[in-house]
């Protein structure tokens, strides 16, 4: 069993290596194409100081030109100074237009209205407040909101519905976090952003991996086998992954599927939106 898990981990690790030059080329072309063919030339990006939004800013700047990418820093009073500084490094490296909007005075009245509000609710409100600003600036700047979701967090549902999940597109949505890190490194994202622990930065000391209960490295291996290679849960356990880990991860994927699909429509007519009224978003484009 020990030998087997080493084999399967080595297999998954090898498969999770991406040719970052190829990924960059496809994703830059994707952003350019999908922004321009709907009549836009510009993009709006919320810069958290983290690796995902930094990578998206680099890709969008290459796709559309730096002058056409608006970077917004949207701190709350508990946000760390490091996050603000790292977001500024991205702005400086790319030379993109930018602004900083403090969301504290916008969200505090709502927090005060419900004094027993927990961190989860506060975090969701902050994520949605940022969405409101990004979509307002989308109109003001004339740019599409580019989302920063990656495959790991979308599968695990580690996002706020209508918050950070709200965007015109998620160009990194088919790259696992560990693959995204390779891409970020190779397209020039600053070192301090590459090396710090991933965090939603919703409260002091929060890290993704502590909150999720597993490392991205481990969960990406498992998700790669379950999703991309279509291992059954039993096969993943037989390959050497802990049963509790496998069960917990897959329960999360299933429980959060509602975040990955549009709101349900009940079919009562002959032809129904979402069921048998079927067109791509790029209809006519």
């Amino acid at each position: 069993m020990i030998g087997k898990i080493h084999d399967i981990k080595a297999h998954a690790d090898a498969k999770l290596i991406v040719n970052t030059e190829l990924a960059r080329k496809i994703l830059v072309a994707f952003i350019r194409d999908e922004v321009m063919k709907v009549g836009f030339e510009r993009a709006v990006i919320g810069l958290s100081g983290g690796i995902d939004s930094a990578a998206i800013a680099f890709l969008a700047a290459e796709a559309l030109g730096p002058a056409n990418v608006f970077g917004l820093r949207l701190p709350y009073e508990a946000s760390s100074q490091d996050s603000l500084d790292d977001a500024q490094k991205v702005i400086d490296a790319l030379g993109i237009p930018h602004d900083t909007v403090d969301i504290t005075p916008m969200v505090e009245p709502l927090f005060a209205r419900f004094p027993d509000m927990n961190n989860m609710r506060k975090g969701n409100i902050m994520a949605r407040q940022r969405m409101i600003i990004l979509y307002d600036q989308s109109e003001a700047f004339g740019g599409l909101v580019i989302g920063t979701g990656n495959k790991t967090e979308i599968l695990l549902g580690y996002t706020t519905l209508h918050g950070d999940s709200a965007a015109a597109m998620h160009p990194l949505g088919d790259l696992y976090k560990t693959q995204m890190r390779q891409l970020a490194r190779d397209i020039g994202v600053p070192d301090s952003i590459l090396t710090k622990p991933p965090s939603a930065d919703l409260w002091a000391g929060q890290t993704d991996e502590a909150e999720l209960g597993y490392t991205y490295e481990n969960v990406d291996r498992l998700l790669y086998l379950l999703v991309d290679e279509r291992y059954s849960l039993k096969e993943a356990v037989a390959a050497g992954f802990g049963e509790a880990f496998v069960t917990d991860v897959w329960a999360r994927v299933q429980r959060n599927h509602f975040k990955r699909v549009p709101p349900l429509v009940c079919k009562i007519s002959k032809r129904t939106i979402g069921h048998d009224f079927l067109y791509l978003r790029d209809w006519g484009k």
Partner: protein
Amino acid sequence: MKLTIGLAQIAPKLGDVDANLQTHLDYIDRAQQAGVDLLCFPELSLTGYYLKDLTYAVATQPGAGSPVFAPLLAASQARNMDIVVGFVDRDARGRFFIGAAYLSGGTVVHVHHKVYLPTYTLFDEGRYFAWGDAVRAFDTRFGRVGLLICEDFWHVGPPYLLWLDGADLLLMHSASPARGIDAEARLSSVRWVEMMNQAYAGVLTSFVTHCNRVGFEDGFAFGGGSAMYDPDGELIVQGPYYEEALVTAAIDTDDLHRARYRLPLLRDERTGLMMREMQRILSNGGGTR
């Protein structure tokens, strides 16, 4: 005989037939300037690929009576250029096919209906389209030719049948969403298609051309990389990945004879043996689809 083949690696607009027709006419202009005798467009080049419910709206019937085909047929005559286009073919009884049409001298010389409709993973063709039921070679002024559409040549049967039916020039075309990122410089689906087409050219000692579209439809990235292979199985020319291009090369059909002197696979092919064994397999319940 020497002829110049062009592969128009375009990015059709989804469901906008008028815009796509204009793109075809523009590429025909460019191809003529490049001395092209035979110009191939990709699968569903006039309509875009992931049509879903647009299938019914974009369909036409090939011929001078179609407002889409009329200017293409006129161009084939006026420019003295044979043209292969991709379209949705609607038959008289309301069935829809993924079609490829070979146009020459103002007439529709041949129409092929896709015989394998991928309906798995990201593909949903069987939901909308009827299955073609013929694989036929046909005569052109450049020799005997066969047309195949994407999934048709993921199966070994159709290229083999065209070869036995006398085709020396296999014109493949695709709208292939590129997929399968890993450490390699090309995505896994791209490697697969290129490996197959190169192998077909070699084992069938024939010319194989492959015109693949580019551009995006929602999240699908079409890869391009259109290519031509000679009867020795060697790459003649290849277009760029993910970018529009007109890929051209001159070929010499006398290469066919030279390759087949060296490697007489066609002479030695045992069609009778093949037929006997196929009949035995079928009679043993090996499937009749």
